[in-house]
């Protein structure tokens, strides 16, 4: 069975958009955010039109409906990722999820001098929270280098340092290079040799991973994973921190307020058990429902097939781009593992100008440092153009993109 792209595309209203220039939208900015199928939009509309109410402590019908939908969404999402619902903590996205980890776990389980091992490939969202923690409590940050020739993590350096690390934060799949890191090996090394053999705690920044991978969270043996709904057909303002059985009990608290409280007095309070302890305030109700609808929609597909399709488009595009004189492709797209992101640069045409001319042809690509400036520096550049594919993209789009790009370069460089 192969993906029925026509049927898939028909589910996405935005994909039929045609610009005033007459060019149809070719959306190749999926690593930034994916589009939403009508089923997701409709689920949120239905909620607002029929069931909207604040949740929990529900006595009236609407509140009961909203609570049921909200908590059932948690079950749908946690089933998808392979963990128990109470260990899926809703956040506004990957960034807040990593901050939640740093605050609710990091602050109470790490101390001055503890080594936090990150990589040079991290998105700022998996860097700045740890810089803040370093400043606040004195943990020491170390970094696994990226080899600028192979575009991969220097696993020798990882092995050399892991023994001293108490915590490892690593991007599962790079948003710039499209590479999927050897996360199984990273987890294994961390667990067997980390922290002097006692095992290091591992967080995977899975923002890009969830677009093409169900994770299998508990089976991986990882401690934390952070992700965003908007990168997998879900709404904005939504995401989660996934937490292992071992770690959930070690987490204290983060934001304080309504809904996370069991009982409050003026001078102290007791908190709810997880997940609600970590979800202060009126929750993101419509967003949770929308995310679950996205997962319901994705559930009709075999994710390996989806992943193969996305990777096929990226690999084809990368190969074509390498044929174009003056173009450098960043990242190795030959292997079997990776995502739909293809970063490239032209040697004379500025990335911003190039993006502009691609846009004039209807092609939406992202341009900039992709919130990964340390990686950019390691690669000796300050930005890339990045085309990133998703399950609704077609080979025709990939080819049209390459053709248009060639035309722009011929004309302007």
């Amino acid at each position, binding site marked *: 069975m192969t993906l029925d792209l026509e049927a898939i595309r028909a589910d996405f209203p935005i994909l039929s958009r045609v610009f005033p220039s007459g060019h149809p939208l070719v959306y190749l900015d999926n690593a930034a955010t994916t589009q939403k199928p009508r089923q997701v939009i409709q689920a949120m509309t239905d909620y607002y039109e029929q069931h909207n109410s604040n949740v929990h*402590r*529900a*006595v009236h*019908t609407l509140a*009961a409906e909203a*609570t*049921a939908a909200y908590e059932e969404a948690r079950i749908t999402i946690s089933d998808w990722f392979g963990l128990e619902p109470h260990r899926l903590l809703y956040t506004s996205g990957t960034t807040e999820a990593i901050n939640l980890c740093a605050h609710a776990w990091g602050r109470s389980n790490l101390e001055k001098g503890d080594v936090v091992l990150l990589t040079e490939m991290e998105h700022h969202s998996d860097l700045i929270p740890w810089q803040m923690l370093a400043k606040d409590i004195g943990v020491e940050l170390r970094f696994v280098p990226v080899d600028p020739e192979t575009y991969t993590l220097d696993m020798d350096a990882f092995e050399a340092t892991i023994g001293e690390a108490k915590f490892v934060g690593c991007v599962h799949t790079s948003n710039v290079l499209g590479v999927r890191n050897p996360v199984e090996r990273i987890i294994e090394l961390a667990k067997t040799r980390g922290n002097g053999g006692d095992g290091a705690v591992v967080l995977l920044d899975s923002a890009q991973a969830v677009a093409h991978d169900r994770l299998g969270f508990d089976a991986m043996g990882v401690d934390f994973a952070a992700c965003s709904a908007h990168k997998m057909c879900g709404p904005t303002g939504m995401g989660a921190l996934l937490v292992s059985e071992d770690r959930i009990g070690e987490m204290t608290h983060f934001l304080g307020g309504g809904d996370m409280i*069991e009982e409050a007095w003026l001078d102290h309070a007791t908190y709810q058990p997880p997940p609600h302890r970590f979800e202060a305030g009126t929750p993101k109700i419509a967003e949770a429902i929308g995310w679950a609808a996205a997962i319901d929609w994705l559930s009709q597909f075999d994710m390996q097939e989806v992943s193969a399709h996305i990777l096929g488009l990226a690999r084809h595009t990368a190969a074509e781009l390498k044929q174009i004189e003056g173009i450098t492709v960043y990242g190795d797209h030959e292997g079997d593992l990776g995502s739909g992101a293809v970063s490239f640069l032209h040697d004379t045409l500025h990335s911003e100008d190039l993006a502009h001319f691609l846009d004039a042809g209807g092609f939406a690509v992202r341009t900039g440092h992709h919130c990964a400036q340390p990686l950019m520096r390691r690669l000796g550049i300050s930005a890339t153009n990045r085309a990133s594919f998703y399950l609704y993209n077609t080979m025709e789009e990939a080819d049209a993109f390459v053709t248009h790009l060639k035309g722009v370069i011929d004309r302007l460089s």
Partner: protein
Amino acid sequence: MDWGEGNWPASLQEVIDEFSDVFDAMERYEMLFDFASECTPLPMEEWCEDTRVHGCQSEAHVLCSLDDDGRFQMIGSADAQIVQGLMAVAQKAINGLPPEEVSTFPVTFTRELGLHDSLSPNRANGFLNMFTRVRQEARKLAQGAA
């Protein structure tokens, strides 16, 4: 025994029959209120953290034990009448059964009272939490007894 629809303990079936004679939802609730007073209560002096059911809107307490014949006994109190009424019905349903049977007793029996529309298990959260707790205690008692 495999309790469930069409096969309820006689004492519960009696209650179900009583409810099934009444067509008005409001009247059924009035009946439930009446049942509340038939509940074998847990005296307030015995309320403590251990007996407290968490996740109830209302204050609710239960105490589970085995009688001399090793049969399950639950007593309890709640300040909301609906919860206490359901507790009374629950007593008729499960008290006197072997604890193993209580540990898997289907919560769906509340549906048979015809309160379903307005009292799905999801709605009557308090009762659901109470009954889940009772089933857990029955499991422990069954294991202790085995």
